[in-house]
């Protein structure tokens, strides 16, 4: 098959994200993870395709559904799982939790729990890249639900006005929590929002991780050439509910099954299985993924919780009131 080495790399990461989250879901049901846990299962091709299109010196910002892009950018499973468990060895020292994955080394600027508020912030990061002339591109992910909130548009408005090196990726999984797209927005083609700001646009379905990578690359290169932002709408689907506490009764079993039949991870695996060599390699990767995820659970379990003295040091430099 074409680009067999890359195909295997992408397969391993997609499989890692899925298995990491399946085990996180299990740990959640055991009470080891508190609060909220929003799973990315079904959308992996976007994070992995994007990570392969970006350079290490580029920056990413995303929503609260952030485990996938964090892992794809290079965060270790240990740091991610420990964060979910609220342990001090987590990527945000256990203070952030599921929705607040940060990774300075891999230029991952969060994990944002407030819908849309990270788009202006991403524009600022892109501004700083342009200001310092370092050639970096910022990619910001948001959901279809964020298309209706003001901050989203303020971010796009500034990015387009200032011709910033940024790519807006709308991961359209077709539900804002429990409200379907056509019930929540008047124009369901999210890419048309680009027209209002004079931005370039693209729109496609995330069924093939190579297509995700290649089409995002076009937008990234446009940004790097100084030709301004692009809005890329990628149609996708989450197989689980909005969060662990959502049984997703607002959609039919048939609808979910229909999307699962077009699963990008399964499709990639089928391509790999078509040849004996890559099939054997994929099986070996499955085993290494299982070992990595199991180790992350063990690591998170064994890690200590943060102590209250960490609160002071992370609020601001100086005294605070208890």
């Amino acid at each position, binding site marked *: 098959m074409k680009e067999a080495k890359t195909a295997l790399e992408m397969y391993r990461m997609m499989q890692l994200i899925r298995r990491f989250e399946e085990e996180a879901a299990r740990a959640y049901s055991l009470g080891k993870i508190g609060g909220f846990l929003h799973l990315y299962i079904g959308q992996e091709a976007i994070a992995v395709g994007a990570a392969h299109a970006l350079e290490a010196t580029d*920056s990413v*910002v995303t929503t609260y559904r952030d485990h996938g892009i964090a892992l794809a950018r290079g965060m270790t499973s240990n740091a991610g799982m420990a964060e979910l468990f609220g342990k001090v060895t*987590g*990527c*945000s*020292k*256990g*203070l*952030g939790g599921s929705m*607040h994955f*940060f990774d*300075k080394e891999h230029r991952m*600027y*969060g*994990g*944002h*729990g*407030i819908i849309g*508020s*990270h*788009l*202006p*912030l*991403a*524009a*600022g*990061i*892109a*501004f*700083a*890249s342009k*200001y*310092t002339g370092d050639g970096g591109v910022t990619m910001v992910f948001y959901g279809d639900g964020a298309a209706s909130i*003001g*901050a989203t548009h*303020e*971010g796009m*408005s*500034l990015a387009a*006005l200032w011709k910033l090196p940024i790519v807006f990726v709308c991961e359209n999984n077709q539900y804002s929590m429990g409200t379907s797209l056509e019930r929540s927005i008047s124009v369901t083609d999210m890419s048309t929002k680009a027209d209002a700001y004079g931005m370039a646009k693209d729109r496609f379905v995330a069924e093939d991780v190579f297509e995700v990578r290649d089409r995002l690359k076009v937008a990234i290169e446009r940004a790097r050439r100084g030709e301004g932002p692009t809005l890329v709408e990628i149609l996708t689907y989450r197989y689980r509910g909005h969060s662990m506490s959502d049984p997703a009764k607002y959609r039919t079993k048939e609808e979910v099954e229909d999307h699962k039949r077009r699963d990008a991870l399964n499709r990639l695996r089928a391509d790999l299985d078509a040849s004996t060599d890559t099939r054997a390699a994929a099986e070996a990767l499955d085993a290494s993924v299982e070992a990595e995820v199991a180790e992350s659970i063990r690591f998170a379990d064994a890690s200590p919780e943060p102590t209250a003295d*960490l*609160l002071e*040091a*992370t*609020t*601001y*430099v*100086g*005294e*605070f009131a208890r």
Partner: protein
Amino acid sequence: MTQMNMVQAINDALRFEMQRDDRIVVLGEDVGKVGGVFRVTAGLYDEFGDDRVIDTPLSEGGIIGAAIGMALYGLKPVPEIQFSDFIFPAYDQIVSELAKFRYRSGGEFPCPMVIRTPVGGGIRGGHYHSQSPEAQFIHVAGLKVVCPATPADAKGLLLSALRDPDPVMFFEPKRIYRAAKGEVPEGDYTVPIGKANVARQGEHVTLVTWGAMLYESLDAANKVQAEGVNVEIIDLRTLWPLDIDTVVASVKKTGRVVVVHEAPKTCGLGGEIVALINEKAFLYLEAPPKRVCGFDTPFPYTLENEYLPLSHRIVPALLETARY
């Protein structure tokens, strides 16, 4: 030393720090070519260019959100919100993103920036050009809040804020932008964040205030002096972290305290100050602490001088507290 007003002192601090630190970027509505509606950023656009002094669209959430991204990437943004009454479209960015960034990233991403914004009444601005929302930012853990009353403090505190590792809300009392004049040190001059100033020595009553109400408080203190009441005035300068030690030391001396602020009385910073005095100096009190504040109403257009805690409202409070 040079004689300056508040606007000149702030402008001087910005220019000084922009010359020595090219990470500083000023952005906001009309801050560039126009030089700001109050002319605080006048001349900076010509000196530093349009990539460092940026005119933005009317987009407060966008301005603060973009500034946060700049700070995360290593720049030192100084966004201006044209009036603090206009800050609320950006309140989500300030509360949810800016104030919590250091915490929720486990300390990995501090977010140093200075949000400058004119505050307070006295220009007949009515309800959308006169408010004092400082308490609404103090209540958000993670922000430092500053409000200078003199040109020298404005320069010194702004330079400290620009070098602080955390976000600072820098409230500029617009009533005294040009009315407050004084000697300002040239070149590098800092006033530490978190330190109050005893603006007037006295032994009978402690008066705690900040911003433009310092001058009304001084006027009231001079008036009650004629009646034998000697007032000690503490200009907080930094509203958070609060220099409660200076306040408590004074209250232990006088046993009496009046807090004066423009913001509405209920849940204003005065309430917190009185609570802290009760916690730390209860047995020293000779009279109930008193607050002279704005009313719990929208800021009025025609009744501004009734709403504001001006000298004519402070004098009776001082006399009543002194004679209790």
